[in-house]
Structure formats: structure tokens, C-alpha cells
């Protein structure tokens, strides 16, 4: 929800990348097979054990229906990683493609696109996504669509800028001089050199998507109950924060850790690419 300029020195690249990747790999594993790591059924009610504090039987405690919070937090990983991936995958591919074409061909498309960017950035991202979800209706699929409808613009802007820079370099002139077609130049020559910042931004963007998705979940516009999602878990526990802190603290930590994972991995990739230059 905020745009940050990173100031990390390029030295720590490997530690950053490794820690970030490990966090993301563990999360991905949990997301793929939550049933194997979660000790209980995340949806099973237990009226004899409601609002139980963390114990050996329930490491993260239980919620107001006696559901095991550890299992719910683990199962929610699947939903939140889905939000991170599904809502950004189409924008990163389609947006980058459009941006590359606009950067390469320029002309009227470039003028129109720049106007569009000027306008899209004037809408606070959250407000625009809420506006679109309001029209489409709440739910995860509509959340992906809403984010996608806006998000591609940012990837297109980035890809366009990268292609514009790469186009002026000698190797691009050389490729053109050799008589290669636009498709070959774009995908074989320019894309590999332009893709670094796109991947780095994608990492940041997935973290933003989780923040956005959990915020909408919290508001009741994202994942719908009984599906466990970190934002909806926090919404469930918000009335018990003073008496049963565990319901909100663990999903909150999960969001923070996911954000850390993506941002470390993104910084690591950026440092790696900078070192390569």
C-alpha cells in the first residue's frame, strides 16, 4: 500500500536472498499440503474448548468456536499465497507484454498509455479495488479480477521504461542491424535484460497483494467465511483481542512474516542483478 525505495547496500545479497527464499519455500510447502502439517481440521467446532489459550494440544490456542488456530493459520497460508500469486500473475505477464510493445513501438499507443498511467495513479489503489469489488461483488475471484484490472498498469509502466533504456544500447542496435525481426529482438534480446526489475517489483507486488487481500478480507470483501484467510481470522478475533490475544496475534505474525519473506527475496534478487551488471 506504500511505495518504498530500497536503500539496502548490495553487500548482504546472499544472506537476504537465502533467508527470503527459505521463508517463501516453507510457506509454499504449507500452502501445497496444509492437511499434512495442520494438526486439526481447521473447520471443526469444539464447544468444550472455546477460546482456549495456547497449550501443547493447541499451540496457537482456539477461537470462539473451539477451532484450532494453528490449523486455521496454516490453512490460511494457502489462501493468502493464492491471493499473492493469482492476483498478480496476469498483471505481470499481460502488463509486461503491453509495456514492452509500447516501449518498442512508441507512437500514439505510448501517448495514450502515459495518460492512462497519470490517471490510474491518482486513484488510491485500495479505493479503486474496493470500488471494483463493490460492483463485481465480494469474494476471492472478484478480488483477483479487481487487483488485476488495476495492477497491470504498473508492470506495463515498468516494462516500457526498461525497454526504452535497453533499446538505446549497442547490442539492440546490433540485433536490428543483423536484420532480426521485432519478435526475436524483443523476446530473445531485450526481455532477458529488462526482466530483472520486473521480477523484483513482482516480489514487492505479491507482498502488497497479501496486504490488500487481507485488508479486504478483514473488511468482509475478500475471502468469505468459513474459508480461513489471515485477514478474516483477524476480523474473527478482533472482539476478543483483550481476552484472547492469540486469535489475532498469530495470523498477524503470519502476514508480517510473509511480507518479510517477499521483501527479503525481492531485495536479494535486486542485489544479485545489480552485482551481475
Amino acid at each position, binding site marked *: 500500500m506504500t511505495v518504498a525505495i530500497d536503500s539496502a547496500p548490495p553487500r548482504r545479497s546472499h544472506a537476504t536472498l537465502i533467508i527470503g527464499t527459505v521463508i517463501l519455500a516453507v510457506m509454499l510447502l504449507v500452502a501445497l499440503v496444509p492437511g499434512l502439517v495442520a494438526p486439526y481440521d481447521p473447520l471443526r467446532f469444539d464447544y468444550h474448548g472455546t477460546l482456549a489459550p495456547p497449550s501443547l494440544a493447541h499451540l496457537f490456542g482456539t477461537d470462539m468456536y473451539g477451532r484450532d488456530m494453528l490449523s486455521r493459520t496454516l490453512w490460511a497460508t494457502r489462501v493468502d499465497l493464492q491471493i499473492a500469486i493469482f492476483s498478480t500473475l496476469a498483471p505481470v505477464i499481460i502488463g509486461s507484454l503491453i509495456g514492452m510493445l509500447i516501449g518498442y513501438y512508441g507512437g500514439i499507443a505510448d501517448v495514450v498509455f502515459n495518460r492512462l498511467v497519470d490517471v490510474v495513479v*491518482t486513484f488510491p489503489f485500495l479505493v479503486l479495488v474496493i470500488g471494483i469489488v463493490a460492483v463485481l461483488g465480494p469474494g476471492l475471484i472478484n478480488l483477483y479480477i479487481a487487483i488485476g484490472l488495476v495492477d497491470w498498469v504498473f508492470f506495463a509502466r515498468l516494462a516500457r521504461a526498461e525497454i526504452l533504456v535497453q533499446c538505446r544500447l549497442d547490442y539492440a542496435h546490433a540485433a536490428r542491424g543483423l536484420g532480426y525481426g521485432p519478435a526475436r529482438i524483443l523476446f530473445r534480446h531485450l526481455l532477458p535484460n529488462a526482466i530483472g526489475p520486473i521480477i523484483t517489483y513482482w516480489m514487492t507486488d505479491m*507482498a502488497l497483494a497479501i496486504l490488500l487481500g487481507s485488508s479486504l478480507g478483514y473488511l*468482509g470483501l475478500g475471502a468469505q467465511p468459513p474459508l480461513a484467510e489471515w485477514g478474516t481470522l483477524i476480523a474473527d478475533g478482533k472482539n476478543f483481542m483483550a481476552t484472547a490475544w492469540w486469535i489475532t496475534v498469530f495470523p498477524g505474525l503470519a502476514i508480517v512474516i510473509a511480507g518479510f519473506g517477499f521483501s527479503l527475496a525481492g531485495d536479494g534478487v535486486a542485489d544479485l542483478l545489480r552485482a551481475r551488471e
Partner: protein
Amino acid sequence: MGYGRFVLRRLLQSVPTFALITVLVFLLVRLLPGDPASAMLGDRATDATVARINAALGTDQPIALQFLRFLGRLLQGDFGQSQVLHMPVTELIGERMPVTLLLSAYAMVMAIVIAVPLAFLMALHRGRMLDTVLRGMFQLGLSMPTFYLGLLFLTVLGAHLRLFPVGGLGRGPVDMLYHLFLPALTLGFSLAAVIARSLRAAILEVLEADYVDFARAKGLPERLVLGRHVLRNALISTVTLFGINLGQLIGGAVITETIFSLPGVGRLLIDAVFGRDYPVIEGLTMVFAVLVSFIFIATDLFQAWLDPRVHQ
């Protein structure tokens, strides 16, 4: 080019932006699948009621005609009637807007008050313990969603320690600032993190500059070197970033107002979404975008004022 002409040119540049904002907001409700009338009525939808609502909203007309009407009403400052609260949208927004503006301005001031001194501290202690701890704190602030941060402040500082009230606006200016302290802190924290990180990097860069050595060499007290030379130059690159994020901050007001039950436009938007109150959603989306455009203009003008090279 003089500053006056720069201002004029920047203002003219924003005219097409405003026009496109209008088109986009208009299309938002009309082009996306989903029919406002049936959505608003839900189970009560019959052919007759849907037709009646469509007639009331004007959504039964051809799209070009709808746009002309929309534009005509807009020029008179008319966003239509709220379908839930049965009052003009303009009036509703006008009523709720001051709360959001006050909250955002408060959060902005809070972000600056937190970020600027801490950025100096981090830069001057570069690589040492204090720097690492503060950077960790700000990284945490960026990874934490606003709603969670707000809930934490509300529970710990509000309900548990009873340092601050947990909702409402209070009476009188001082009491209001006291009541809005936690919401403003919540809203401003991620902006503070962004500014502090960027300013820290900028200060480190400026400290290397020759004119800083010169200012020190001529015997200027360190306080003046930092305040007059380093801060002003380090701010230039941060101002743009500040502007961009200020726009997002206003979006964050939606969440902060919901958590702290404040009667601002952000809360109004959420209520409108749940009430399927399309005229209100439309009006608010538009107002948010126009507000952010003005922030962008102000940012550009301020940056040009700080750094005359921008407009020369």
C-alpha cells in the same frame, strides 16, 4: 522558465487527467458486469422494481446519453442521490470529508515528526546498533497491514493501558487531537517508514557532497549544517515519494476509519459498498481521485520550489 509559468503549465497538464478520471469513474459502474438495480434489490428484485430503480439511476438510457447527463450533473457538483440514506451524495461527502482531511493531515504531520529525526539518527549512526534496530522497526511497519497495526494500538494503548480513547471524535480541538492520536499514528506509520528509509539514504548521499564539507569548513555549527544544507537537499528526492504515498495514505483512511469507527468518507465508502449504494461509491471514487491529483500537483509545485532546477 519562471515559477509562475511552471505553476500554470503544471495546472494545464492536469486538465486531461481530470477528464480521464471522470470517464473512468463513469465506466466503473457501467461497464463491469453486474447490474446495480438487481444488486441493490437482491431477493426483492422483480422486473418492475428493477425497471423502477434503473429509471431512477438513469441506467436504462443509452450509454452516451448517460455520460452526457453524468457530465452535466457533475459540472453542477451533483453526484446524484444516495439510494440508502436518501440524501444528495455531495451533501453526504461534504459532511464526512472534514474528518478524513483532518485525520490525513494529522497522520501526515505525525509521519514527518516521526520520520525526519529518526532518519537523521539512522544516518548519523549508520551501521551501528541504533540504525539496525530502527531500520528493523520500519521494515516491520511496512510488512504490517494497517488494519492489524490499528487493532494492536487500539487494544494495547487504548483498551489495555487506557492511554488513549478508543473511538469517537471528542469535543473541542484539543480533545479531538487526543481522540484522533491513535488513528493518525496508525495511518501515518507506514508513511513514516517509507519516508525514514528514503530520507536516510538521501542524507547519507548528501553528507558526501562538497558543499557540506565547505559549510563545515567555514565553521558553521553542525546543527545548521544538518538543518540548512543537508535536510533541504535530502528532502528534494523524498518529496516526490512523499506525494505518491500521501495519495495511498488517503486510501488507508478507509481502513483506519473503519477500525476506529470515525465518521469520515472512508467509512462512508465501506458502508456504501455493503449497502450497494452506487451513486455514493461513484462520487467517493471520483472525490478520492481528484483529491490525490491535487496532492500530486502540490507535490510537484513544492518540489520545484525546493529545487529551482526542476522548473528552469
